[in-house]
């Protein structure tokens, strides 16, 4: 029975999960939960996901939420196929988890504040908070300076291989670059810029973007 991913395909957190599945060559069915009509806050959905968020997955009888728990699950389950996403030693694994936590706690909240105020609200005809967005952009610039230093030493965040730590950054960064005009933040950071160009041109990521654009429900590798 195929994996089911519940959410909205344009949303960042479901995209993390789908990207991981595409990297690992795992087929899945995408089931729309329409966050635009607050479907994720309705009792039927909240029975599955008590915090009313997306994504939610079902892998046979096993159900899970929290995108970073989900990608760790699939990266472990399918460790023997596709790219190694978790590091090869205890030390490498620790670096993967370090940068996963940086993404979750430091990078993404800042990035989301920008995307929310400069893109998500305006496309709904609502005013974004420009002051909040600008403050977040300044913060993001400083965060990216730290990334630049790391990426001058290693090709990817946790080492010389692409791992979950890089993967979880991609969906929100695409919004920053393509919908919020923030590519320029990478102009004075050559290693971070090269890293972004590399990870965003991965075949699996491009396949996922085509899948999302197609509006299809079933992904087959």
């Amino acid at each position, binding site marked *: 029975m195929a994996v089911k991913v519940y959410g909205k395909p344009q949303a960042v957190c479901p995209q993390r999960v789908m990207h991981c599945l595409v990297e690992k060559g795992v087929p899945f069915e995408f089931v729309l939960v329409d966050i635009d009509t607050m479907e994720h806050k309705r009792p039927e959905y909240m029975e599955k996901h008590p915090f009313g968020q997306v994504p939610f997955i079902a892998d046979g009888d096993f159900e899970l939420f929290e995108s970073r728990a989900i990608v*760790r699950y699939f990266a*472990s389950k399918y460790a023997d196929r596709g790219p190694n996403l978790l590091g090869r030693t205890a030390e490498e*694994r*620790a670096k993967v988890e370090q940068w996963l936590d940086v993404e979750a706690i430091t990078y993404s909240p800042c990035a989301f504040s920008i995307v929310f105020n400069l893109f998500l609200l305006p496309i709904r005809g609502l005013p974004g908070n420009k002051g909040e967005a600008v403050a977040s952009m300044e913060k993001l610039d400083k*965060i990216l300076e730290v990334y630049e230093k790391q990426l001058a030493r290693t090709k990817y965040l946790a080492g010389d291989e692409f791992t979950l730590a890089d993967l979880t950054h991609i969906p929100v960064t695409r919004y920053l670059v393509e919908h919020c005009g923030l590519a320029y933040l990478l102009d004075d950071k050559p290693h971070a810029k090269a890293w972004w160009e590399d990870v965003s041109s991965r075949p699996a990521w491009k396949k996922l973007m085509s899948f999302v654009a197609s509006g299809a429900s079933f992904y087959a590798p």
Partner: protein
Amino acid sequence: MAVKVYGPAISTATVRVLLCLEEMGAQYELVPIDYSTGEHKSPPHLARNPFGQVPAFEDGDLMLFESRAISRYVLRKYKSSGPDLLREGSLEESAMVDLWLEVEAQQYDKAISAIYIEIAIKPVYFGGVPDEKVVAESVEKLGKVLDVYEARLSKSKYLAGDFLSFADLSHIPYTHHIVASPHASLFESRPHVKAWWESLASRPAYKKVTAGTPTSK
């Protein structure tokens, strides 16, 4: 060679790592980092944690930051000498541990840390006054999270399942302060949450690590 933890003993994130080391009976050295002199932003510390935060962790050539990543590393390294807190022998159990760790780091931590900052950090370290509006909003937010926890813990002895895991222990650092504050009722009023907390607080590692830490008034 003993591993090293860099950070103030009262820092909640540092406490998270110390709890794991104590649970596993590991030898470690705590190297204090003095916030009052800006030591956390000094070049030697930035070389350990480029975001200028605490804790940082050193094991031989390995330097790590982010308390939950450090904790996972510690729990794996000393796996044979303490409880199984990551459940990596089971794909599904370890996924449940990861799930509740994410919930702790995103939902729980955001709400509870905001309360702690207002009622403890601001007055004690900055001579400031708690912003009652922020406290009230954070208390409400934490209450909603704890409602989910109450429902979960009425079905499962611990968060990830009927086994204690790192997902439970990761909640200790901030909770320790809030249960000693006027907002303890958040925990007291929810019977399963209360029992869960009491179980965590009865652990020897908890008592040892928090013995020296001041709780907010």
